[in-house]
């Protein structure tokens, strides 16, 4: 059985109320999640207008799918993040399809600069020890660089695992193991903080 934090329990209660059509609960959940989800959308799409359209799609889905949320599978936060990421990837693929028609063959199309930029920022970002994001950044920075790099490409880069292996110049099996080890180590560190 997975332990839940107080915040995860509060989120779960909010999503239950949203499932029953409670707009006040939806508004509260929006306030809690919109910052990180918007940051993720902007990081992946690199365009504020696209990111806002994506947010609208995602929150409307949260509203309509709240009743199907399964707490056994993930926290509300992770569920929303992965939903946002998946919709962002759909948009990036659609964008690439449009570019292929206008610009040329697929080999010319590179992931956006935004998607390629390193997510690990300077030490100055981790100054605020109480900041959840800074904490995760620190944990990510603590991972061996090859694991961190594989996770970054897998999470933000909208590449297949074969493409990640090609990009990093390592065998597919090595890349899979790095993603798995990195994620498990990250989770271990987060749990130790509970």
């Amino acid at each position, binding site marked *: 059985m997975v332990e839940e934090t107080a915040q995860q329990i509060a989120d779960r209660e909010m999503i239950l109320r949203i499932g029953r059509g409670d707009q006040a609960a939806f508004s509260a959940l929006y306030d809690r999640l*919109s910052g990180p989800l918007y940051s993720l959308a902007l990081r992946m799409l690199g365009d504020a207008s696209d990111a806002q359209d994506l947010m609208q799609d995602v929150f409307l889905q949260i509203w309509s799918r709240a009743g199907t949320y399964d707490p056994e599978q993930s926290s509300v936060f992770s569920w929303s993040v992965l939903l946002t990421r998946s919709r962002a990837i759909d948009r990036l693929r659609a964008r690439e399809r449009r570019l292929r028609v206008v610009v040329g063959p697929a080999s010319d199309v590179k992931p956006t600069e935004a998607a390629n930029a390193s997510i690990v920022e300077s030490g100055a970002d981790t100054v605020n020890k109480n900041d959840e994001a800074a904490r995760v950044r620190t944990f990510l920075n603590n991972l061996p660089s090859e694991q961190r790099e594989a996770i970054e490409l897998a999470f933000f880069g909208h590449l297949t695992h074969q493409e990640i292996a090609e990009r990093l110049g390592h065998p597919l099996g090595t890349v899979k193991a790095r993603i798995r080890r990195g994620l*498990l180590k990250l989770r271990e560190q987060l749990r130790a903080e509970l």
Partner: protein
Amino acid sequence: MISEEQQDQAALYVLGLLEPHEAAAFESALNANAELRDIARELREAAGNVALTAPPRTPPASLKQRIMREIAMKTEGPAPVSMQRTPFGWIPWAIAAALAVFCGLLTLDRVRLERELAETRAADPLMQTTFFTLAPSAPAPADAKATVAWQPGRQSGVIRISKLPAPQPGKDYQLWAVDAEHKDPISAGVIRVDKNGVAQVRFKPVEKAEHVKAFAISLEREGGVPKKEGPILLVGTA
């Protein structure tokens, strides 16, 4: 006991990196294995947290208003429709059907246009041609100029030069392709102008140049050099 291979699959699954058939197989395994479900949840939580490393941004306040308005509209639902039959009750349905057909036609038209555009690009050499205008730099006369029509697909081009006086004996003009993938400019051959300072020649770089950013003409030793040595006389981008 969960094998490392299953854990790898779980990590790729939560990130949506498995192929559809692999994902379906993994989901079957998940349904049958509580321990695997726990690992998948652990990995999902870790992956969710990676999002927090994106540079923090705040969405505009207007976005929340927009979303809340839409939610309110969904909650209220459409206005109740009277079931009482009227003589013209079919009109809104007819308009809706016509609009649906119209939208379908527009979609088909768009797909057709996109396909045609792609075919035209492939068939029409002009649409595969990039034009570069070369302007003079210091040692060249101020009114010297050149235009390059470059076809990356064919790896060849045509250059037209005007008002560039013939070089002194023992020297030649040499054309260079500046390519993003090559450290040094790629030679595209020696070019000889006539007595009026005009040349129009077809050229082909000595190496493959797939990402040409600029063309340049330099003054080199007679017969040309493998690597640029002399001063640039004309240079230009697309």
